């Protein structure tokens, strides 16, 4: 058994024998023709161009119908490469001036371009060389009339192992009996990886030497979740992965069976279920999920790796496009929860290194210190709320005092008025919410509630600040414990305080995506959960398999318990009825 580590390019697990990929050999007759036949040779090239155009049109149509228009754009890029004036002129000049036969000219032009691409240092752009050689290959096969993309069909379900795969090869994999692929080179963003994701074929790329060390017929496990390739696994590993395969299948089944069903417990209690959505990671699976809204749009990603904060226009475009994806369902946008280190990188001011960044300048503190960032973001959010039909809601991160709530609200109201004066008014009232993730806010919540419309609990930070534990620190990480009696009590306090004032409370932190603790949270009175897209259906399945009554009893008992072990055991006893099992996230 051998374990090769690569990059997970397309999720899923496949088990099957290896087939080594032999790239179709381009049968190019190098040679020259008599100068008198130049026009005839140019005509041959023209015909090959026309055929290639027709090929790509047909392929584009096929992908549009099977995988959707987003993926068809890969072919659009190929069409543009085909028509590239530099490429075309380079080929033509080799025919006209050097009298090289057309296929030689194409190959030579390709080689010249490949060298330039090889000199690029950026891996992402380097990979685009594949697209160029795919187009050149298409031209050459159309010139020689040779067998096109002669990938052989595998005898049974097999795993394709290749040094590199061209996008057009990838498209034919399923038809040729391949259930997964492994390549030596490539990255997550290569077109082959993107196509594999859309075809739902597990893939591992960038595994450096797979095509040399793996032999034809070797039994392979391709773990598209972690990027591992296991060669000739032992019985135990094989059994483990067969189990994971079954679990993945179960999740897919859930998609088919419970996606359309209501969000109800067995005794008919409704719990609102939304997703934490990241526009950069939108996938086919996420699009299929039937959710009750966007529970948390983190906006920090817009501020990463750049010299200036994102403009109002850029933010507006992203917020509006995202909100439109959720039609009439609520969309919660959180103001950027940035850390003090961004002060310097975004050129806001001089950054003084903080001894304790988690207790330092972050979240609402940074927004109040540099109000221009907040105003720009608020304007973009309000404009998005005026442009999209979805009710947009605002969440302010890292609130620790009533003064902060009032300060942000004043800026928010000013911004609303300023935009209203320009004729921009939200389609729905923008609810004003706060994150409760600092213990002081949890305890002083009753004083803040008159100012806010709703509350969202940030469980990760709340646990961290309550127990005073940094879970990145290996020595103390074990203390990070969501079943801590103190934490259960504070959740109870937040929920009860909100219930008294008639304000809604939701959980959008990691805990909402943990099937083991969700019944306890529901029992404590949390009636809105926002989960990661990946865990959405599993949490929904959990919700649909427990009774609210049992959850409430569980919570009442947990509030009387003294140790986290007791609380955890009690919760687990409730969470495994009717064969409901937790699925392995990361094997």
């Amino acid at each position: 058994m051998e374990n090769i580590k690569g990059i997970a390019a397309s999720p899923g697990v496949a088990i099957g024998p290896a087939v080594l990929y032999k790239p179709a050999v381009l049968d190019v007759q190098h040679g020259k023709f008599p100068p008198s036949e130049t026009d005839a040779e140019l005509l041959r090239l023209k015909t090959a161009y026309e055929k290639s155009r027709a090929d790509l049109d047909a392929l584009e149509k096929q992908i549009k119908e099977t995988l959707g228009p987003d993926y068809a754009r890969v072919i659009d890029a190929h069409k543009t490469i085909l028509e590239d004036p530099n490429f075309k002129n380079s080929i033509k000049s080799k025919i006209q001036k050097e009298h090289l036969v057309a296929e030689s000219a194409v190959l030579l032009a390709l080689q010249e371009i490949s060298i330039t691409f090889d000199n690029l240092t950026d891996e992402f752009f380097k990979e685009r060389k594949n697209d160029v050689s795919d187009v050149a290959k298409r031209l050459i096969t159309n010139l020689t009339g040779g067998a096109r993309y002669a990938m052989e069909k595998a005898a049974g379900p097999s795993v394709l192992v290749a040094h590199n795969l061209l996008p057009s090869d990838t498209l034919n994999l399923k038809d040729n009996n391949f259930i997964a692929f492994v390549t030596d080179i490539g990255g997550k963003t290569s077109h082959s990886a993107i196509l594999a994701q859309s075809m739902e074929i597990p893939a591992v790329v960038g595994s450096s030497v797979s095509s040399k060390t793996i032999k034809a017929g070797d039994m392979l496990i391709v773990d598209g979740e972690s990027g591992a390739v296991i060669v000739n696994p032992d019985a135990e590993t094989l059994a483990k992965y067969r189990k994971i395969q079954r679990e993945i299948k179960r999740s897919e089944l859930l998609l088919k069976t419970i996606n359309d069903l209501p969000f109800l417990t067995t005794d008919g209690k409704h719990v609102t279920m939304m997703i934490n959505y990241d526009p950069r990671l939108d996938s086919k699976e996420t699009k299929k999920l039937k959710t009750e809204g966007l529970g948390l749009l983190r906006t920090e990603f817009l501020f990463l790796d750049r010299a200036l904060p994102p403009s109002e226009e850029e933010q507006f475009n992203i917020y509006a496009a995202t909100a439109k994806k959720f039609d009439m369902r609520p969309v919660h946008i959180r103001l950027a929860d940035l850390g003090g280190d961004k002060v310097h990188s975004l050129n806001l001011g001089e950054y003084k290194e903080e001894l304790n960044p988690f207790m330092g300048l972050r979240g609402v503190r940074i927004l109040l210190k540099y109000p221009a960032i907040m105003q720009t973001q608020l304007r973009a959010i309000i404009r998005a709320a005026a442009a999209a039909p979805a009710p947009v809601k605002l969440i302010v991160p890292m609130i620790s005092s009533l003064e902060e709530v009032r300060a942000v609200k004043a800026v928010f109201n000013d911004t609303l008025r300023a935009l209203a004066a320009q004729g921009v008014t939200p389609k729905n009232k923008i609810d004003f919410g706060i994150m409760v993730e600092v213990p002081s806010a949890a305890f002083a919540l009753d004083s803040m509630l008159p100012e806010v419309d709703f509350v969202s609990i940030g469980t990760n930070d709340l646990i961290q600040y309550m127990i005073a534990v940094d879970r990145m620190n290996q020595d103390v990480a074990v203390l990070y414990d969501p079943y801590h009696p103190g934490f259960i009590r504070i959740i109870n306090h937040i929920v009860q305080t909100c219930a008294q004032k008639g304000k809604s409370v939701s959980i959008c932190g990691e805990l909402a995506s943990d099937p083991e603790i969700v019944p306890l949270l529901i029992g404590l009175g949390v009636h809105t959960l926002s989960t990661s897209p990946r865990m959405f259906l599993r949490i929904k399945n959990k919700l649909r398999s427990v009774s609210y009554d049992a959850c409430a009893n569980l919570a009442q008992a947990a509030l009387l318990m003294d140790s986290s072990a007791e609380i955890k055991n009690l919760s687990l006893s409730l969470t495994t009825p009717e064969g409901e099992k937790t699925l392995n996230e990361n094997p």
Partner: protein
Amino acid sequence: MGGDLLYMIKKGLEVKNQMGLHARPAAMLAQTAGKFNSEIKIEKDGVEVNAKSIMGIMMLAAQHGAVLIFTFEGADEAEALKAVEDLFVSGFSEAY
């Protein structure tokens, strides 16, 4: 036309898409530039390429935040500038 001093616009544009000018935006840029008769060149770090060539554009390996200097030269240069600018402002209509 190339030597006519009446024509020529120079303009720096910043790449705003998170992923940089990868294949899709590069294709959109080359297609847009290809619609105009003007000569359109892009310069970055001393390298100059033809804006109508997708491969030229990709070879610039322009990442998020990079500033590209465009030169438009020809009778329809103003329209060409407008079209190219629109692409950059819209972030190549990418909603990620």
